[in-house]
């Protein structure tokens, strides 16, 4: 059996900013003038970095992710990946959605196959066999070989999200965009999937941009946490570097006093400095 086709770590000697957001603003025209969602966002993400974005509802986290995914374009500034300006969605920036977004009429295998096929566009039998192989390898990667021919409705929430992650990874994206990927899962499944994602990331070193509400999740998984101020006109308030070495261990991490220092920093940012005004919400 061949080894898993994991993206090779980038070997460029100079660490150019891989993903770059420069002076990005996004506003929507309304009858009362422009409604500004994001204002002056500057962010550089290195290749192989795991970056989380955290903030209250309505702070423009999803807008930020949509800009990177290419679903929307910035009103000012630009977003670029490897010096290429992002103008449209593409398979190099695969999104894992909170609601999985699997096609319910396709099996787990077929959902992943559709993604891989759209990237490789196999022309002959050899290439088609290669595509099938990639699908099988990624089903194995998330431990779903036995459920390959089940439809999404026969799968649990955790299994569906595994399929979605496998689909995203199988497409070998340059950057993986996770939109609150574990938000709809129960706490136990959520921890399982966090562990799996961390394991996969530690092996593949794929660049990840993840939106989350969960401070513990962000600290456990990320290299850096981007904390957003409240909207409208949200921007990056503070960036927290998480110094823990990889591979990480959840039990050991949560006993580390530094974990609590970081946790308190995050929580004080969210609930003291940028607490939500209840009357406004």
């Amino acid at each position, binding site marked *: 059996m061949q080894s898993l086709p994991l993206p090779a770590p980038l070997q460029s000697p100079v660490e150019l900013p891989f993903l770059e957001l420069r002076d990005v603003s996004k506003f929507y025209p309304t009858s009362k003038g422009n409604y500004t969602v994001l204002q002056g966002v500057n962010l550089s993400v290195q290749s192989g970095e795991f970056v989380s974005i955290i903030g209250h509802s309505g702070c423009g986290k999803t807008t930020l992710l949509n800009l990177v995914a290419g679903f929307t374009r910035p009103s000012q500034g630009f977003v670029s990946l490897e010096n290429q300006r992002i103008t449209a969605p593409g398979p190099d920036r695969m999104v894992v959605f909170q*609601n999985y977004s699997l096609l319910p009429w396709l099996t787990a295998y077929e959902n992943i196959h559709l993604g891989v096929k759209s*990237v490789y566009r196999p022309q002959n039998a050899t290439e088609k066999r290669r595509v099938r192989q990639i699908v099988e390898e990624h089903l194995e990667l998330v431990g779903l070989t036995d459920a390959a021919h089940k439809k999404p409705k026969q799968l649990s929430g955790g299994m569906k999200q595994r399929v979605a992650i496998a689909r995203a990874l199988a497409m070998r994206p340059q950057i993986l965009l996770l939109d609150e990927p574990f938000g709809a899962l129960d706490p136990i499944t959520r921890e399982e999937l966090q562990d799996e994602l961390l394991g996969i990331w530690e092996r593949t070193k794929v660049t990840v941009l993840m939106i989350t509400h969960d401070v513990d999740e962000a600290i456990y998984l990320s290299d850096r946490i981007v904390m957003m101020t409240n909207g409208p006109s949200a921007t990056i308030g503070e960036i927290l570097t998480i110094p823990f070495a990889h591979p990480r261990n959840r039990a050991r991490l949560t006993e580390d006093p530094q974990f609590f220092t970081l946790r308190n920093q995050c929580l004080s940012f969210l609930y003291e400095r940028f607490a939500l005004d209840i009357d406004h919400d």
Partner: protein
Amino acid sequence: MTTTIPLPRRYSWQKFLPIVLPPLIVLVLVLVVWQILCSGSNPRLPAPITIIRESWHLIVNPFFDKGGTNKGLGLQVIESLRRVAIGYTLASVVGVSIGILVGTNQLINRGVDPFFQVLRTVPPLAWLPIALAGFRQAETSAIFVIFITAIWPILINTSVGVQQVPQDYRNVSRILRLNRWEYFWTILLPASAPYIFTGMRIAAGLSWLAIVAAEMLTGGVGIGFFIWDAWNSSRITDIIVALVYVGMVGLLLDRLVFYASKLIVQSEE
């Protein structure tokens, strides 16, 4: 005898009795009341026993063929179903095609939707004179009436279904950069299938309603003309037997489309 297989027997009785018994009781009650109401000397409508006695040949022999329009009810129904099948199939193909076109193109949708909304309210039989004038043929006109009756629910449901394709699936297709053909087969058609089948189910019911009425006017072999012919020959008992057939076939058609849709449509729930 009964002691050899007591358990499954009792089990199946217990399961089916509550389902079968209530409608059976209602049927018996209705027949008894009907029998009593229509039992005087020379009643306006025949009582159930009179119907069985006078139309016995129709009930026991659905497939006799004595030439012309003198055929058993089974053959009459098959002839009507043939017309429905042609008109309904045409309506499905044309309705789904135009529905997809209209659903995916906002401009075309704005242009034609008001006309569809008006046309769909025209009663099926009102189309018949126009069809007769155009085709100058009873058979083609009857099929056209089925077509024009069945097409609106299919067309309108399809176009709504196409517009209701969830944004998530469209986003997936945008990331995967699916071409039009792939988008159509892997996302658009499966996502709108539940709507299309709802339209097709409504259309099946309407088609059957329309064919009976249309055949009364166009004549020839068919359950509709059979009823009209029986009325003109004062064979009221035959009409009632025919109505039972019409009802049963209508129900069967509805179930048929329903189970076909269950077989094909994969919903998320």
